[in-house]
């Protein structure tokens, strides 16, 4: 069984919801990424989304754009991100890691070589923002061949036929983007999420995570009432950006622990 499925099975048995934080690899600097990943797990994260920086992050708002720029300035590449995951795996054999980013760095490495190296490093899932199902069949066959889960985004604008198409290809979990906009935007609409989820569940048996625009523990808790997992990105990246280097790990840990506590509150 995959690490991702094992996590969701366990949480389901415990009647708990998954907490999925996102950070950009190499932000604020490459030495802090592995300590941050362990801190996130320590604070109660269930799955880790690790951003692979890209020069042209079209789907991201200013916060994650800046994180991407800092990481690239630090010389981070897809190869070095894989090395970070491998280092993380030396001390954590169970927490799933999902790489999230844009397709071109993978295209440049080649999907087959990437899938092999990612699997060796201990990656569990891959989410490429700009590769919809239409263009993904050949590329994602390589992921599956190496036991990696392709993770897909669904949006408020996604119609039934597309949801069904994604349902066929998706593995692990499905990530519902809770608003029309880029990451970090602030206009989350809980009732819209509540209305959309039944439409998604008609087609999708996998766990559904909701993200984009979740900025505090209370909102996270209310989203968790509706979904199987809560994804928090920009708010954590903002914590990293605004903390002095020596406080980064502790501040992130404290914030995520607060969200965890809210999610587990009965």
């Amino acid at each position, binding site marked *: 069984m995959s690490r991702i499925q094992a996590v969701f099975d366990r949480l389901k048995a415990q009647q708990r919801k998954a907490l999925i934080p996102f950070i950009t690899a190499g932000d604020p600097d490459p030495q802090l990424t592995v300590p941050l990943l362990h801190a996130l797990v320590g604070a109660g994260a269930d799955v880790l989304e690790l951003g692979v920086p890209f020069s042209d*992050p079209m789907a991201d708002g200013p916060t994650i754009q800046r994180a991407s720029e800092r990481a690239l300035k630090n010389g981070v590449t897809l190869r070095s991100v894989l090395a970070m995951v491998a280092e993380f795996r030396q001390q954590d054999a169970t927490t799933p890691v999902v790489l999230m980013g844009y397709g*071109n760095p993978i295209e440049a490495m080649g999907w087959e070589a990437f899938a092999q190296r990612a699997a060796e490093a201990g990656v569990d899932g891959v989410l490429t923002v700009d590769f919809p199902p239409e263009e993904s069949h050949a590329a994602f066959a390589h992921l599956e061949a190496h036991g990696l889960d392709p993770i897909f985004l669904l*949006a408020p604008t996604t119609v039934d036929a597309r949801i069904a198409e994604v349902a066929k290809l998706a593995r692990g979990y499905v990530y519902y983007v809770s608003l029309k906009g880029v990451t970090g935007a602030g206009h989350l609409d809980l009732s819209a999420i509540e209305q959309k989820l039944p439409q998604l569940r008609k087609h999708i048996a996998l766990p559904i995570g909701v993200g984009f625009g979740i900025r505090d523990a209370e909102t996270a808790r209310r989203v968790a009432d509706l979904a199987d997992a809560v994804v928090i990105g920009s708010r954590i990246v903002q914590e990293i950006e605004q903390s002095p280097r020596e406080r980064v790990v502790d501040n992130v840990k404290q914030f995520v622990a607060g969200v965890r506590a809210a999610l587990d509150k009965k």
Partner: protein
Amino acid sequence: MYNYPDNGGHFGPYGGIYMAETLMPAVDELRRQYEHFRDDPEFKAEFAYELKHYVGRPSPIYHAKRLSEQFGGAQIYLKREDLNHTGAHKINNAIGQALLARRMGKKRVIAETGAGMHGVATATVAARFGMECVVYMGAEDVQRQAPNVFRMKLLGATVVPVESGSRTLKDACNEAIRDWVTNVETTFYIFGTAAGPHPYPMLVRDFQCVIGNEAKVQMPEMIGRQPDAVIACVGGGSNAIGIFHPYIDVEGVRLIGVEAGGHGIGSGQHAAPLTGNAKVGVLHGNKVYLMQDENGQIVETHSISAGLDYPGVGPEHCLLKDLHRAEYVAINDDEAIAAFDALCRFEGIIPALESSHALAHALKIAPTMGKDKALLVNLSGRGDKDMNTVARIKGITL
């Protein structure tokens, strides 16, 4: 028979739809609407009317006799897109897309722009049809093309300088896509070149094909036959595909696309993905030859001309290169400036720096050809916007 793209927008291995999920329904809707309206007699008639009465088409073909004599060899003919309303070919496409936007009930249009010509064209049609208009422009280009920024503002558009990345065309594109994701229900993205996610490469090509369709009639009228070669500059590739496409099935007509060689292909500082043998990659919704480093990060490009300063190129040009149906070459900054000067002095026409690249290549090969040969250069735009850039290069303060 040459017949591209396929239903998914693929030109052989290139093109496609590489977009965030939020926008997939929007591009799909655009494709369906376009496929419906492109054969609609009313739509076609309205487009033709606007091109004739608002843009001023057909644009003439001009025999640059003095220039041809000066350089010796082949005769040079200019397809005068610079004479269009707003001064470039960009208006052909902007009108077409605005007509679609109206039929789709969109009251807000956005655009990216490099040289500012597409921004001006979009601001113009937005004023013409009473739509709100926001144009994204790299902060560096806002400086380089200041006159066009002022024109857009006069026309009622909001110009947003983009400070991220290399602060040029590709970053303006990123920001326009971010706007579109956020406002997809109300907003039509008037994309400026024959690239991006399907259906844009096809749709922009179709609207720009008026250039080549006219030329195919005009050349025989002028010289009794088609030209030996058709030459056009290639940024994203819209003016080039517009004049090339109607000629693809015409035997004996060479098609030559001219990319921006910047400081020279060898210097690495250029914007010539086809000539520079860039690797294939994915950016801005399509798979194309793309300037990138070995880690798949997009590199900063360089060209004296803002409209050619882009790391990718439209998918149909990628295919035409592979098929050897079109040839792609590069012209350096200084060669483009020399051609710019020559056209000013010998013909009394001030060309855009983009178009000067195409002209420069014609001036390069004309002397190697007989006087009975004919080269048709797409003069994609006029150079008024480039006064500041050219003055700075010549060490003059305006």
